[in-house]
């Protein structure tokens, strides 16, 4: 069993998974098989943006930018307490791990859409690590739960000083230097989940718009609408499980976005157009479906 704190983080992750699923489904349905390219490109850009941002932060803080420090500050896949990982190697140059349980993959597989989930699994973690290592790392994903053949994921990430310029190696590796502590505080987890959700919305919106113009934007909007129809009843069920009213306070703790889309994270990771579309087609609809009044919606997020 998970405690109340865990459950809230899990709920947030479920909504991110659901949003991704509905947006990917709507894109494939509205834009055809070319949508796969747009979704993959979005996940690549998102991974690259997150990896690059962390690299900049670590460089500014004087942290050695090796794989060990990367995975102390960045989720190995996603930041869900239900993930069960077996870490096989945790060094500056080599990071090996298996994922035995992944709630996101379970959700996608249950919907019969493991292959849509795979676009995320194949692109996002690799591009984040590659951006952090300035293209010098190597990402391997030989097994993944989103594939019918496999019952676990196996990631192997390598980054060798001999494959990078000397200046970069000096900033990345240092014998005997202590690794950063794991950053698993609730605040960090919640912020990372919100960042992942807002970024997913932004990069999918942009990639679909770029490739398919208005068709792509319509697919994005339709995906959000479909998601809101799924999310609203689920929020009610989750609230009832913990004997809470499904109100603004509950949403604040269990849903990764504020209904008023006023998080500062939108400015950092979102785009105005994506925010607007999300507000109209997801957040306002949720507000209506859950019968929340205007006043109740006005809570302040991170």
């Amino acid at each position: 069993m998970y405690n109340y704190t865990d459950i809230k983080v899990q709920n947030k992750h479920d909504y991110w998974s659901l949003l991704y699923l509905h947006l990917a489904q709507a894109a494939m349905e509205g834009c055809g098989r070319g949508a796969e390219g747009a979704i993959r490109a979005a996940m690549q850009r998102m991974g690259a943006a997150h990896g690059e941002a962390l690299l900049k932060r670590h460089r500014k803080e004087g942290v050695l930018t090796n794989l060990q420090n990367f995975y102390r500050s960045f989720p190995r896949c996603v930041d869900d307490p239900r993930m069960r990982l077996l870490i096989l190697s945790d060094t500056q140059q080599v990071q090996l791990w298996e994922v035995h349980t992944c709630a996101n993959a379970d959700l996608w597989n249950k919907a019969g859409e493991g292959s849509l989930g795979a676009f995320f699994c194949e692109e996002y973690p690799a591009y984040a690590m590659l951006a952090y290592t300035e293209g010098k790392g190597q990402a391997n994903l030989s097994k993944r739960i989103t594939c019918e053949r496999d019952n676990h994921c196996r990631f192997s990430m390598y980054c060798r000083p001999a494959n990078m310029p000397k200046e970069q190696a000096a900033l990345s590796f240092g014998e005997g230097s202590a690794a950063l502590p794991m950053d698993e505080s609730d605040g960090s987890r919640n912020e990372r989940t919100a960042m992942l959700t807002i970024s997913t919305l932004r990069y999918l919106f942009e990639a679909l718009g770029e490739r398919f113009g208005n068709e792509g934007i319509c697919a994005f909007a339709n995906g959000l609408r479909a998601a809101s129809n799924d999310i609203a009843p689920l929020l009610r069920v989750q609230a009832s499980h913990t004997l809470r009213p499904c109100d603004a306070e509950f949403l604040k703790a269990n849903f990764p976005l504020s209904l008023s889309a006023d998080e500062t994270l939108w400015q950092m990771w979102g785009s105005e157009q994506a925010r607007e579309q999300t507000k109209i087609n997801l957040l306002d609809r949720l507000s209506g479906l859950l019968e929340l009044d205007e006043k109740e919606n006005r809570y302040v997020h991170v």
Partner: protein
Amino acid sequence: MYTYEEQCTINLGDGYTLLYSFIIRRMLDSFGLEGERAAREATRRFGRDRALTTRARHEKLGAKINMKSLFSIGGDLPPDPRFRRELQELNPQERVSHTLICPMADMWKQYGEQAIGRIYCEEFHNSCYGTYAFGYTKVYLAKTLTQDGDEYCAFNIVLRPENLPDELKPQCFAEYDPDYHEVKYERKAADGKTGFDHLSIKLYYYLLDEAVKAFGDEGARAVEAGLEDAGRDAARRIASTAKECGKELDAAFFSQNVPFEMDPESDPLWADYLENNARQRAKEHFVETLKAEIKALTERDLAPV
């Protein structure tokens, strides 16, 4: 038990595998991290060369450049009878397979050079399979027999059409090419002798080239020392095979079991790999060392054919 022909392929394969580790060992001992940098780059160039050769051959056949073609038409690696692979999936987008026994990994481990084997696994496959499909292949090798704790190699080599630019889609996938007529081709395995000779020449050539580029004459000397180590080791291995098989240790036996010709100048495979005096160095430092070692072991010269 293996047949004599199989044993020859095994010796050729081991010669090729150990040539790599003997040369790199010298580079690492002489130049440390910078030696490793040169070795990794040489391994990537070797991978790219093999990929371009294979792709050109497949294009000539009219095949689509995808994972099914790469792993079913027949590559340039001769089939070593000791390899054990389990194919999980092969289609134009994916080749998923497990290598349960890899004689290359076994040899490197036996010689205490697993770390050098890791360099090969990290660099070669990525470069080769990646280059084959114009840099768009995702080469996932998350488990390897050269990695401590892994019990097999898990290859997931993936080429997603939707990650390709539009102009390459018809060249790689039949479903994007309405005018495509499927080509029937016979799977043809590479010949053991020619195959391993060619691979060894290429492998050595790129290691020499990178060593010279990075370290000049000192780099060349390190590679020459590696060739001598490989020559001495090859002599012991083939002498043992000759004894076990009851074969005469002559020039013909040399040719059948060593991935270089006794007279490299007579071998046309060197034609594109002559820079840095590579062929002459191979003759002087590998072939001559091997012959001297055979003489020391058997107290006689290698008999001519």
